[in-house]
């Protein structure tokens, strides 16, 4: 995410601990979705695509709620007093929920010899739908939280 310069060097260990707490919950949620997909006889790559699209929408909304904007209304970064929330929910929970490495491994297997159409569907979901979901979440969050999004950085 975009951050202000003064973030550099500020309490990395406590933010890492916060990200551990959020990331453990997010990873558990991802594992439960995978388990539900397996129980329903659905492929594992589908579980990764679902958590990625859902997580992308959620981080868009979260970022819109937490970000500071310049006078033109453009996002400039997360203010220091909201950084713990951002690390708990964003870098932690949603970072643990979503995965690029799992997606990359899925696509390798699918491209090498998965069922026809599965690779194309996985690429479309992760490459296009996820990004659109993130933009939609960002717009929805800005509409719900117009007051916080006008906050300034200092």
């Amino acid at each position, binding site marked *: 995410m975009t951050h202000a310069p003064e973030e550099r060097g500020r309490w990395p260990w406590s933010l890492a601990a916060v990200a551990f707490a959020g*990331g453990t919950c997010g990873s558990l949620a991802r594992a439960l979705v995978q388990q539900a997909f397996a129980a329903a006889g659905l492929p594992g790559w589908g579980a990764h695509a679902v958590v990625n699209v859902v997580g992308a929408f959620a981080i868009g909304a979260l970022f819109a709620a937490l970000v500071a904007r310049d006078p033109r209304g453009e996002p400039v970064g997360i203010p220091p007093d909201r950084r713990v929330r951002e690390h708990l929910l964003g*870098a932690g929970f949603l970072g643990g929920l979503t995965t690029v*490495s799992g997606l990359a*491994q899925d696509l390798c297997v699918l491209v090498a010899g998965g069922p026809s159409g599965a690779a194309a569907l996985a690429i479309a979901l992760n490459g296009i739908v996820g990004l659109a979901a993130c933009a939609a979440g960002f717009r929805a969050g800005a509409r719900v939280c117009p007051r916080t999004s006008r906050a300034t950085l200092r």
Partner: protein
Amino acid sequence: MSAEALAVTALSGGVGCALRVLARDAFLRRGREARWATCAINLAGSLAMGAVAGAAASRGAEGSLGATAALGLLAGWTTYSACCMDVVVLWVTYRRTRAVALWAVTLAGSVTLAAVGGWILRAVTGGPS
């Protein structure tokens, strides 16, 4: 997935997230842009994922707790959501060439590196390629 495997996945994922925050902080201290730090983290994690998945498959150890912990760590270490957000922010702030570049590098790079990771593992262990 057993309760044990769920717990291992959750905790190793949490550790991966914490390590990502620390690595990102180290990148920022060196004056790198946050979004390219996240990109580098995702690419490194994908390379390792290819190797770990290949190693687990070659030993028939896909369901073992060690493999579960390693895969969980890498899944938590990498993040799709933050990368998406970086791309959207670049796009809405009219830095659209960079938005497209970041997305293309992340998607194409991560898949390519996962394949390379698997290939390196097979080359090292002498398994079928």
